[in-house]
Structure formats: C-alpha cells, structure tokens
C-alpha cells in the first residue's frame, strides 16, 4: 500500500507549488494543492495607475503569457473608455496572440508535459535519445518568439501593445520574411499532432463543466462570448454573474467556482470540446487523421488539444501574416472619461478575465483579474480526489508521478495565480 504522497516542490510548472495527498486505513483523507508562490498584489498596485500604464504592468503577472494579460486588459480598458479599435488592429492582435500560443504550447507540449509521457525527467534528457524531437520543439518555439519580437519588440513582456491599438505598425518586410519559417512551423505542428497521438496517456476520465470563449466565425482566442458546456452563455461583461472567486487557507490564489458552486475547467480541452466546429479545415483534417473523438474528458490528453491548437494558430498566423497591410493610424484616439470595462481572452492555459473602473481623469480606481489557473484550481483538486483511490496499490514513486503529471497536464501558471489580493494603496 502506498504511503502519503508529498511533493514539496513541483517541477516543470511555472511558479511554485506543492502537492499533498494523505491516506488512512485505505481511504483518502486529505488532498491539497498548495500554492506557496508569494502573493504579488497586482490588483492592489494597479490602483492609482493611469490606464495606459496597465498593459505594461499586467504583462508582468506572467512571463510565459504576457500577451494574454495585455489583451484582456486593453479590451477591458477600451470598453471603459468607449474606444473602438480598427479591423487592422484586431487582426494584428490576433497574430500577436498566435505567436504567444506557438511559444507557450511548444514549451508545454515538449518541455513541461512531454517528458512525463516519454519517460524522461526533462526535454534535456529526451534530447539525448530523440534529438530530432527536441530540435523540432526548440525551432517551433523560436518561430513563436521571433513573431512576438517582430510585432512586440521582444518575446517576454512585449512593449508595442497599448490601449487603442499598437504604438506603431510592425515592419511589413520583417513579418513577410518570417513566412517560410511559419510554413515550416505549420508542418512541424502537424508532426506534433501525429507524435502526440502516439503517446501513452494514463486512463482517467471526469465529467467536467467546460468553459471557454466562443465565436460564430472563428476559433475564439482573442475575444468572444463565455460559453459553458451546460449551455450557459454570457457576454464578457456578465462574467461575474456566472463565476465567483473564494479564498482557501492553503493557497495564496483565490479559487473559482460557478454560481451553482461547481468547479469548472478552462483551457485547451474546454476550447476544443466547445469550439471544435470552428477550427480551420487544416486543423480539422489533422483531428480526422488521428481519429480524434470528442469530447475529450481525460485531462492528460490536454496535450493532444494543445498540439491541434498549434496547427490552428500556425495556419491562422500564416493567413494573417500574408494579409498584413498596415493602413491608417496604429492606434485609436482616446477621449479620457470615467467608466467601467470588462475584457476576456483565452490565454494559452484558459480564460482570462479583467475588470477595471476608471475615474474621469483615466486613473484606475478598481481592478479585478481572474486568471485561468485560479479558475482551474478547484477542478485540479477534484481530479486529485478522484484519482487518489486508484493509486493506493501502486508503488509510491509511480503514484507520486501520476499525481505530479496530472497537475502538470493542466499547464498551471502558478505565478499568475497570486495577485488578486485586494489592497488599498495609500501614498506615504
């Protein structure tokens, strides 16, 4: 019989967390996903900042998905200020988001979760036996980072995004020069799907409430309505009518649940299950090739969803890059006014919601940020409760690995789960 499972420092996740499962007399008595990542109080120090400073600050919540934080915040602030962005700006923001997906998904598929499924402790050790796989991963990741750099100036914490649009249009020739690499990336993404389909996923299924943005005309990433597998459909400004946050003792992250007090799942599985019909033909063809059946209810198979999304974003990025023709002003003029605005976008690891209240001079009076990992927390713990009894008779090392792998499969971004602690800022 296995001993208690205790992982004091989870590896291959972004941020710091620990995992505890206690057994007594053959049953599970305690499950705890403990976040000891220090709280960084972002919502506190956003108060009093000028609206245009916000996307530069919120980017710093997460070094892996800064674009997501910029995209949700600029949409919320544009709503508060009554700013309409041009079609060209929206297209360029979608392209920037594709770049972040390529970088983040390539990292997670090959370097964070991939080693669990190939029996390695890291991509570095995988490289010793399958160098071509790791080289593909690195080159794919690099294409995403190069695209981020051309549009945003740098790949981590890009500097070109602002409320109203972009500080300036990226160089069209530099973007076009990346087309051959993007064509290679699309093919590499297809190979990633084929590779992902061969991996040995643990058997484990749960009934999830999936929640993701949705649109009628495209696979929603940049914006959309909030759709649940229960059929609930909300506009981003109604998000808090469906989903609530609460605090638990063992974690510095707030946890989320639905108004019916149910845990729910955001992220690639939710997106794929809810929006499969909106995927591009290139992506659907790959799903067909590997014989994918929906819905996917096994969290470990989120890797397959990420691989398919890699095809989706590479194909989208190619189309947007080929069509890129900067026209007119790169940012809308803004008449500063008081207001409230909400914005939601799909970070690589799931739905990311922001809400701000501005005073009449454009300074932030209130900020709320609900990151994807916080929304998945309750679901991750529920999964651990469900899987723990099946581990009782497994060797301890294997049981521990199964649990760690489960948490990693969620691609938790623990550093982004720690900042909705509300504080009053008082100037000294």
């Amino acid at each position, binding site marked *: 019989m296995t001993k208690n499972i205790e992982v004091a420092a989870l590896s291959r996740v972004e941020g710091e967390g620990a995992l505890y499962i206690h057994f007594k007399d053959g049953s599970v008595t305690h499950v705890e996903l403990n976040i000891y990542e220090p709280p*960084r109080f972002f919502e506190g120090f956003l108060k009093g900042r*000028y609206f245009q400073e916000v996307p530069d600050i919120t980017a*710093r*919540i997460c070094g892996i998905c800064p674009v997501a934080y910029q995209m949700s915040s600029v949409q919320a602030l544009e709503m508060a200020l009554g700013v309409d962005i041009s079609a060209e700006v929206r297209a360029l923001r979608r392209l920037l988001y594709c770049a972040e997906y390529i970088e983040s998904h390539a990292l997670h598929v090959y370097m964070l979760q991939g080693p669990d499924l190939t029996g390695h402790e890291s991509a570095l050790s995988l490289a010793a036996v399958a160098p071509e796989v790791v080289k593909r991963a690195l080159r794919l990741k*690099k294409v995403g980072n190069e695209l981020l750099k051309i549009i945003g100036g740098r790949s981590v914490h890009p*500097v070109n995004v602002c409320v109203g649009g972009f500080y300036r249009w990226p160089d069209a020739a530099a973007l076009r020069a990346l087309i051959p690499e993007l064509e290679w990336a699309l093919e590499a993404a297809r190979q990633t799907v084929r590779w992902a389909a061969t991996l040995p996923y643990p058997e484990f299924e749960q009934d999830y409430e999936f929640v993701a943005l949705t649109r009628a005309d495209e696979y929603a990433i940049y914006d959309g309505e909030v759709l649940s597998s229960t059929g609930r459909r909300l506009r981003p400004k109604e998000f808090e009518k469906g989903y609530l946050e609460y605090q638990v003792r063992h974690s*510095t992250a707030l946890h989320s649940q639905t108004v019916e007090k149910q845990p729910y799942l955001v992220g690639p599985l939710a997106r794929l299950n809810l929006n499969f019909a909106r995927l591009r033909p290139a992506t659907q063809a790959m799903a067909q090739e590997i014989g994918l059946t929906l819905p996917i209810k096994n969290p470990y198979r989120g890797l397959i969803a990420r691989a398919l999304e890699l095809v989706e974003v590479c194909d989208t990025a190619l189309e947007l890059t080929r069509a890129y023709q900067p026209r007119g002003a790169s940012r809308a003029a803004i008449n500063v006014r008081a207001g409230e605005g909400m914005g939601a976008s799909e970070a690589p690891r799931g739905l990311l919601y922001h809400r701000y209240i501005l005073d009449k001079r454009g300074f932030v009076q209130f900020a709320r940020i609900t990151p994807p990992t916080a929304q998945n927390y309750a679901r991750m713990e529920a999964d651990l409760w469900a899987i723990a009894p099946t581990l009782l008779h497994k060797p301890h090392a294997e049981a521990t690995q199964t649990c760690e792998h489960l948490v990693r499969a969620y691609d938790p971004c623990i550093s982004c789960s720690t900042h909705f*602690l509300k*504080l009053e800022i*008082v100037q000294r």
Partner: protein
Amino acid sequence: MSKPTVAVYKFSSCDGCQLSILNLEDELLELASVVEIAYFLEARSRVLPGPYDIALVEGSISTPHEQERIQEVRKEAKTLIALGTCATAGGIQALRNLIDSKRLAESVYPHPEYLQVLREATPVSQHVKVDYELWGCPVNKAQVVEVVQALLQQRRPTLPGYSVCLECKRRGAVCVVVAEGVPCLGPVTRAGCGALCPANGRGCYGCFGPAPHADMEAAAQTLLPLERYPGEVVHLLRHISNNAPAFREAAARMEMERGRT
C-alpha cells in the same frame, strides 16, 4: 574534469527571466553540453546535490520563507548572479513597499491572516552577497550567455554601463523626447534592451534600472514639463525599477516638491 554546475532558482517573480534561459533556442542544447544544469525546477525534475558553481537567482525576496531560502542558496553557490530587475531591485512587486502597513492589515482581502509576507519586497543583495547583477524585465538572454561564458573562461563579463540613449542613437531611432515631446527614461536608464520603447515610438519606462551615474535632476527638469497627465514622470520612475535607489529617491523628491507647490 567534470562540468561546472549551474542552478536556477525562482523567488517572487513572473518566471520571465527563467523563460529567457529556455528561450535560448539556438544555444540551449549546447549550453547543457558545457555545463551541468543541476537544479532548474521549471525545466527539469532531476535535482543534483549542491554545492553549485553558478547560481542564477530570479525574483525578489518577499516572504519569511524566501528570506531563509536565499541564505541556503548563497551557502550552496560559488558565484551568485541576480537575474533580472526583481532580483536586482525588487521588481514590480516592490510597489507594495509604498503601501502603508496598517492599511495592509486592514485591507479588504477576505483573510489576510492566511498570508505570510514580509513588509517589503527587496533585492537579493539586501540579504546576501551578490557577485553579478543582470538587470532587465526580462533580462537580455544574450547577457545571460555572456556572463556564464565569462565565468567559464575566467574573465570579466562585458556588460553595458551606459544609458539607453546611446543604444537609441546607435540604432538610428528618432528621439521621442525631442521630436514628439514624450517623457522617456532613456537618458537615465541602463542600456541592455536595445532601446526597444523609443524604437517603437514610445517612452522608456526603465525596465533595466538606473544607469550608473544617472543625472536624475537633469532628467526631472527636462521631463516634468512634458507630462501628459499629472504625475506621469513619478509613475515612470515607480514602474518596473521603482525600488532601485536612484529612481526611488528621485520619485520621492518629485512628490515632495509637488506637494510644496
């Protein structure tokens, strides 16, 4: 001879500087062949026991636990490198150092008693001896390679000691202060990013911290008349590098003077 060992640690931060190491797509496998990546939780599960030749430390010190842990990291490390502006100055989260501690306790946070945080988020050098500092939010990954390479070759690393203005001129960007009247911290900010913000038509917000010998007084005189909203220059200083002494003190002076007029 065995390979030198490298350990990468995370404290209070966003992971972006560690990611800059993983973003060394062209060099990562080669790097792993000349050094032993002995401890790097974000990248690998395997942990080799210390002591380590090189410790790369991301993040600021903001909890009692981190305060103890950084002492352990120092004991285990022959050379300790502070990686990025959180580690060198406290980072964006040091903005909370400006929050009154009484109000912190009375905050609207539902259960503040669950949290264990120090009153201030502080740089690594406030706790232990730091051998090299790499500024930036995030760090410039070429500088990470340069420092590690220099250590392996037993030479001093070459890092810029001048301001962003010089990088801006070198790349032929138009000065946003002169041409557009946009407040820009370029003159007082350490080079290293390649003058990204001015090249994108906006003002620098100081990610790489104060340049050595930055003339804060001259910058204040030039930039304050250009403010587009009240307090803009103070906000620029109280941004990523808010807790770097030169920026912190200049911002405090400006606020005091504004209070007087």
